[in-house]
């Protein structure tokens, strides 16, 4: 592996990014970013893009390591909780905390699913059965279609049903209940009935050894279903606020929890009862040259790729947006950003073809066509089932994201 020094010594290449200039402008010209800059082009020398960069969740700047991120968060300020007590929680504990608040503030609320009573296979429901009783926190027989249908029925009678599907990969027996029933309950009754009190939680996404059936991120199937909401939070504080919002939202909601985050993310979380807005994306890092969109655990991969890009292309700044809600999604925030940056890369772990990135790309092309300076890029999972031995080639890893961002910037 080449060290940074040896590369800098070896090659200095003139490079300029044209942000709002026509794309055919010779790269040797100075662009609107200021003067032309020198930077070492790793690309030409095929050096590892990672090169000792501190990547991954362990080194993220996106988690509230202290309470200051909570104090200054406008959404939490609006809720009046930003100045109050916070507690360090991992994602799993934050989910648990949200469920406890939901059960404690709403007598009609119940939590149920396979193995939920003893705490769930991921321990997200630990202690709830002891605290609220087995009548409110209970095991169901092993049937996902039953779980979903049961939840719809409870919700249609005005109760709050919080169901757990043990793995997102096992949500498909419930597909009919979700797609044909939950999503259409209100519409088909002319608004007389609805099952808005239903929330279905499901752990999703890659963990490094899950293979075909413990790794999938199936948001796109559900994103094609008008009438339900689809949410996927990236962090403990986000998960707590978004879960409470999903539970209280008057529409049925599928709540995906990237299970790799359960224990790998730890941050300060407000102890209070609070919600975060659904259908509202969040700009995690402001930037002027390119817009990067993702959600769930992929956010941390994108953050790392951006760090490497900004290291290797001094002067470049990337705007990182977490969609948070996938349906109905916040096209405005993304379009506003792309109208400023002129470039867009979208990334998710699910396979590329018909993945949610396609929807983002199409909607942004419709709105921002004249502002775009490069084709919208999608960095996604491979169009295959999720493999075990080849997981690292399947997922849109940091190198693949880095290369795509660079390609888009240089277009």
């Amino acid at each position: 592996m080449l060290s940074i020094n040896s590369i800098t010594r070896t090659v200095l290449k003139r490079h300029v990014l044209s942000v709002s200039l026509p794309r055919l402008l010779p790269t040797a010209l100075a662009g609107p970013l200021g003067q032309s800059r020198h930077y070492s082009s790793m690309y030409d020398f095929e050096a590892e893009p990672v090169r000792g960069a501190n990547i991954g969740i362990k080194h993220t700047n996106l988690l509230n390591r202290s309470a200051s991120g909570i104090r200054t968060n406008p959404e939490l300020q609006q809720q009046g909780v930003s100045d109050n007590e916070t507690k360090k929680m991992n994602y799993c504990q934050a989910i648990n905390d949200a469920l406890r608040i939901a059960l404690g503030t709403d007598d009609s609320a119940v939590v149920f699913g396979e193995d939920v009573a003893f705490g769930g296979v991921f321990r997200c429901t630990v202690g709830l059965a002891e605290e609220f009783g087995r009548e409110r926190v209970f095991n169901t027989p092993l049937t996902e279609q039953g779980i979903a249908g049961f939840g719809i029925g409870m919700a249609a009678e005005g109760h709050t049903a919080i169901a757990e599907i043990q793995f997102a990969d096992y949500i498909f027996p419930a597909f009919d209940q979700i797609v044909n029933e939950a999503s259409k309950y209100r519409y088909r009754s002319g608004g007389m009935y609805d099952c808005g009190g239903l929330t279905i939680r499901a752990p999703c996404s890659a963990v490094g050894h899950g293979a075909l059936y413990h790794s999938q991120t199936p948001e796109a199937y559900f994103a094609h279903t008008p009438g339900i909401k689809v949410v996927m939070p990236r962090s403990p504080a986000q998960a707590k606020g978004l879960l409470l919002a999903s539970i209280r939202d008057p529409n049925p909601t599928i709540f995906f929890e990237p299970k790799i985050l359960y224990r790998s993310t730890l941050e300060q979380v407000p102890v209070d009862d609070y919600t975060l807005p659904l259908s509202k994306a969040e700009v995690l890092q402001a930037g002027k040259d390119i817009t990067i969109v993702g959600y769930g655990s992929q956010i941390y991969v994108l953050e790392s790729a951006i760090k490497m890009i900004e290291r290797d292309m001094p002067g470049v700044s990337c705007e990182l947006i977490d969609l948070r809600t996938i349906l109905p999604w916040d096209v405005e925030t993304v379009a506003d950003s792309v109208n400023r940056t002129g470039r867009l890369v979208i990334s998710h772990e699910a396979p590329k073809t018909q993945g949610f990135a396609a929807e983002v790309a199409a909607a942004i092309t419709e709105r921002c066509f004249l502002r775009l300076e490069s084709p919208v890029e999608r960095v996604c999972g491979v169009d295959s089932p999720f493999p075990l031995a080849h997981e690292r080639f399947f997922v849109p890893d940091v190198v693949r994201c880095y290369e795509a961002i660079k390609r888009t910037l240089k277009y």
Partner: protein
Amino acid sequence: MMTLNAMDQVLYEAQRQGRISFYMTSFGEEGIVGSAAAMDPNDPMFGQYRESGALLFRGFNLDQVMNQCFSNDLDKGKGRQMPVHYGSKQHRFHTISSPLATQLPQAAGAAYALKRSSITTTPNSNGKEDGQCVICYFGEGAASEGDFHSALNMAATLECPIIFFCRNNGYAISTPSVEQYKGDGVASRGIGYGIDTIRVDGNDVWAVYAATLKAREIVVTQNKPILIESMSYRVGHHSTSDDSSAYRPKKEVEDWNLHDNPLTRMRKWLTNQGWWNDEVQEITKKQIRADVLKAFGDAEARKKPSIPSMFEDVYDCLPQSLVEQKNEIMELVRKYPDYYRVHDFAKEQQ
């Protein structure tokens, strides 16, 4: 049975040491071997995941087990699935799928296909054309899925030659069977669907054998399904991701293991027959363990399947999107060989 047990011990331990990613043992349920012994070797098998014993009985060998668990380049499944998700066309064992109960209606369909083609195709291994029979294994937990019910009803109405073999081991992960169903086990459901049903002591290998043998005879002579509910106990944790002390007393597990274990019972029976003694036990155990460790070491030393192999078998041939994705990824792999640890993977076979 002893091989199954020895293999489970080694692979369980190997997972604990981080040498394989996952494992599921059959501790306490070794009696399953009796059912495989009663089937014809050409009878198609559908499993759930805790039926390694049936597959071993068919001749799936330790190397094949280890290659799958290490997802190495000799794994016939090409390293794609988690450990214990075996499959072997050679042994007419359909590849395990994690989503529960999905194999049940598939097995009914396979049985119907057998019925339609039994006149024209493969005779049994004994050369007799007395018809073939599918055997489909599943847990009492999986029997709560909708697929279980559609499978039984379809097999009954369409008169499919199939044995539905329920392993009732008392638990579905943490959920005890008393929370799984209110009725009389899974057996009572067979009656409701018009399926002749038998409940058997799953820890008595000979009882399992005799029941399956008789069931098979009825199936192939009368062209109708049979349901067997085999009562046993899951002595091990659900899987290596599970710690069962969180939901059941250690004492319960110890009691079962001590007083009603298929291995111990078989050993006692053999000893009473005068065909077995402690010395033979020790020698056999040592030999089996050595065989297991040998296969383990061989498989662990091998590389993972070649990188391009991951794009195969999505379809019969690569569609355009996959061709492009393959090219992109292979280019990155060439560009960053260290980052992608290419040396862990076998070279592409030409």
